[in-house]
């Protein structure tokens, strides 16, 4: 059996609880695959910045970008501590762009074989089956995709 199934796992992080559950799940998998590395990615949503530009907040955009970068860095620092606790190696990547698009590009650039993502992130409707980002990733990724569900913690405990 090929032992190479999970060598590089991309974990999409947006700070939501669901994304941290996805991170836990990824650590759990990585521990069973010696040499497996987690690729932790946070994408700053370009669309939010475009909106700011459109409504003539251009002078503020730079400041917003700075703030979002700082927030992204601290999120990734917080996330990085999780695999460390599990003695799993990880790299962090702060990106900017259309979220799903950047996640997919990053998975390709980093040679990932699995993408672990929460079903619902920070934006969007909770009642849809899959959030827009998870949906786009599940549709378009050539890699395997593991979707950790909103409410999965509750059902796992049941």
């Amino acid at each position, binding site marked *: *059996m*090929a*032992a190479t*199934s999970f060598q590089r796992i991309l974990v999409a992080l947006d700070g939501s609880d669901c994304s941290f559950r996805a991170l*836990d*799940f990824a650590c*759990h*998998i990585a521990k*069973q*695959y010696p040499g497996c590395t987690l690729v932790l990615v946070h994408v700053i949503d370009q669309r939010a910045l475009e909106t700011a530009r459109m409504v003539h907040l251009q002078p503020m955009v730079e400041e917003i970008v700075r703030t979002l970068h700082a927030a992204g860095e601290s999120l990734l620092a917080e996330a990085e501590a999780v695999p460390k606790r599990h003695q799993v190696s990880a790299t962090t990547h702060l990106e900017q762009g259309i979220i799903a698009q950047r996640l997919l590009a990053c998975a390709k650039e980093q040679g990932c074989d699995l993408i672990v993502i929460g*079903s619902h992130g920070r934006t969007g409707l909770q009642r849809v*089956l*899959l959030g827009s980002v998870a*949906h786009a990733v*599940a*549709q378009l*990724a*050539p*890699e*395997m*995709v*593991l*979707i*950790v*569900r*909103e*409410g*999965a913690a*509750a*059902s*796992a405990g049941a």
Partner: protein
Amino acid sequence: MLERILVPIDGSPPAAKATTLAIEVATRFKAEVRLVFVVDDSIHVLAEPSYVQPDYTFFADKMREEGEQVLAAAAKRFKDAGVKVTTQLRNGYVPAEIGASVKEFKTTLILMGTHGRTGWDRLVLGSVAQGVLATTDVPILLVRP
């Protein structure tokens, strides 16, 4: 997190790919596997005598037979690899039956192909995968065709 893996199969090549991965993952995690084959009961539309005159009930029988074969063949692959495996043949609306099976087995991970036997390859997610997402909250690992 990965103790009880449910693998829905339909005899398609993507399902075979999911099976191969499931064997590997189950071996690593010493997980128990449940294989499920659902005989799609939309066939009953054909089997309804008032709908079409010839009796098509043999279709359903044929599918059950095929399901048993597909399950037995897949189960053998797991057993040969030393994985604890059980099988289940169900009848009904495929996503709902998979959802029910997921609950019954106290599944912690669903491992399935994005696309099975029916539908368009280019379509977003296969209709069954979408339906399964609607019926359960269990994490789901999707394998590409």
